[in-house]
């Protein structure tokens, strides 16, 4: 019950926030020069045809009218059509969002696997080589451009060593993708029992996941390290030490108390990466959501941009909600 009230309180804020996001993004994207109608119909279109298309796309009247049209369509689940793919944006996003999510989820898992143990070790062994290493790692990971790291990895592991498949999207070109259920290739290929597709998808995930994982382990490492340091200095951990609790218990307690900060940084990274992974997506021809949005911006294709912003905002909000629930589960102080 408490959980429901807790979640409900947060949900109340989501609607106005989403509205604000749609409002701002709509007017922002409207400012991007370029007439989608002209782009869609090509240079041979007559003015009459253009007018008709604009009307069909809800591009008539004042910007406010257009916004109203967009909103009414949105409520009906219609995000418009992309002139580039000539498909409904909703359909496009349903294909592309999972591609990005699959990538960044695995990348963040890798980042966690690198960042948390390293951060804990660096915080606990303050004078060790691990601490030095983590200090450098944290700074360097923040300094490396992810798209460049991707290129270098491609150069080494594909061009030179030929260990990994070509950086060309999510699946071997010659393979027929497993039937679409979730659009998460890993899941779909498991559902279909298509091990060849699963294998191919995994192989193609390695480099981009490593690229993003290695870089995003930086902030997670830093946050883990600093929070753990603070926790290890805290009174209750010192007291646990004076009580002679085993090292593993002490570390576990400190880590448990550090979890809220770590979860927060992960959620921030998660939200950021939906759009932030776009460069890596480009490098690996991933066909993800960020790429879709960037192409939209560059080509005055408004609906994909709006759809993407909306999707990622909703996604971020869902993530934050989950984070709140995690806090709720971890911390008894919030529960009461």
């Amino acid at each position, binding site marked *: 019950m408490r959980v429901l009230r807790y979640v409900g309180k947060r949900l109340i804020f989501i609607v106005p*926030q989403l509205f*604000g*996001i749609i409002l*701002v*993004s709509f007017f*922002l*994207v409207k*400012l*991007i*020069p370029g007439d989608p109608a002209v782009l869609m119909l090509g240079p041979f279109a007559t003015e009459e045809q253009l007018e008709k298309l604009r009307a069909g796309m809800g591009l008539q009247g004042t910007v406010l009218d257009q916004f109203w049209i967009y909103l009414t369509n949105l409520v009906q689940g219609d995000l418009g059509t992309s002139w580039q793919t000539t498909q409904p944006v909703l359909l496009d996003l349903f294909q592309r969002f999972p591609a990005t999510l699959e990538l960044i989820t695995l990348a963040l898992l890798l980042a966690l696997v690198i960042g948390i143990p390293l951060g804990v070790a660096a915080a606990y062994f303050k004078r060790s080589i691990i601490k030095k290493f983590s*200090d*450098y790692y944290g*700074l*360097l990971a*923040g*300094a*490396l*451009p992810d*798209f*460049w*790291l991707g*290129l*270098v990895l*491609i*150069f080494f592991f*594909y*061009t030179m060593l030929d260990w990994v498949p070509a950086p060309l999207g999510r699946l071997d070109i010659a393979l027929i993708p497993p039937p679409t259920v979730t659009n998460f290739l890993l899941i779909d290929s498991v559902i279909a029992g298509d091990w060849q597709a699963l294998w191919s998808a995994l192989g193609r995930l390695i480099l981009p996941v490593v690229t993003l994982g290695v870089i995003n382990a930086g902030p997670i490492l830093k946050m883990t390290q600093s929070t753990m340091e603070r926790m290890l200095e805290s009174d209750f951990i010192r007291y646990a030490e004076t009580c002679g609790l085993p090292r593993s218990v002490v570390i576990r307690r400190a880590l448990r108390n550090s979890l809220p900060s770590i979860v927060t940084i992960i959620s921030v990274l998660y939200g*950021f990466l*939906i*759009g*932030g992974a*776009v*460069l890596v997506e*480009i*490098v690996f021809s991933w066909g993800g959501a*960020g790429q879709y*949005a*960037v192409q939209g*911006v*560059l080509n*005055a294709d408004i609906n994909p*941009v709006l759809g*993407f*912003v909306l999707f*990622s*905002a909703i996604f*971020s*909000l869902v993530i934050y909600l989950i984070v709140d629930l995690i806090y709720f589960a971890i911390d008894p102080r919030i529960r009461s």
Partner: protein
Amino acid sequence: MQSANEPALDPGEAGALGASAAGRRWTRLKFQLRFLLAVLRARPMFALGYFIVLTIIILGVFAPLIAPYPPETANPEDFLQLPSGRHLLGTDATGMDIFTRIIYAPRIDLTIAIAGTVISAVVGSLIGALVGYYQEMRGIRAFFAGFVMRAADVLQAFPVFVFAIALVAIFGQSLQSIIAAIAFVNTPIYLRLMRSQVLAIRNMRYVEASYVSGASDVAIMLRHIIPNSLGPILSQLSVNIGWSVLLTAALSFVGAGVVAPTPEWGSMIAVGFQSIITGQWWPSVFPGIALAVTVFGFALVGASVEVLADPSRRRALGGTLRQKPSGAA
């Protein structure tokens, strides 16, 4: 904890050098220098950071004197040359010298990053200070402050990168619009930072005291609030400059940044990207290293500022430099 560079805390030297103002200033300077050196010795990474940043800036400023070739002139005779004595880091597809272009690049990258970040810091801090100052009051100003915070929420909910590209697309592809885009996406960071600083400082007793004694809002802000919140802002600034360099490069990488053939690390990587698969790695690898080293340098400087601006951490670092051994008082 008193700040470490207060000369009064160094009675031995201050006394020895006499009371003249110049002497005191000299003492203070000497003390600060020595403190800096001590800090740098204790944390050599900081020294590395300052060294990197200074080197990059010097290279950029004196690029015309250092660079062996013109930065934007194609030399088709020498295209895609491997690194050699003649071309230190090789040449790109149009035969431009990569070393030359790398040392010219900070001119653009740092200009954009520093200008964008400083603008965002100034604007963000000002708004943040106002919001923080008025938020807990009543009336229209508090309402407005709340509104600004909600607006910042909405802006920050945007995917940063897409937002930046959209801004560049709107304003057109020019230096100014890239700076504007970077300033825009960074502003909420400073807004929040400053606001939380102000909220903390505002409730301190000495500020309340000024308030009660009838000092004007402006005076309180100028005298107490802004000076006291500079440390975190400065530290954030340096880290942020590095981050903005990355963002600039990223914008160029997708084609929404600087215009070719302007030497800029990101666009150099983007151009070189084409040839990395056919084995010509140098046009994109070297600019990437330059970029990473620069951001690394700024991150180190940011870390040092963070430590130096925080009295307790500064003390931990520099130790009790202030506690000079001296004879019985």
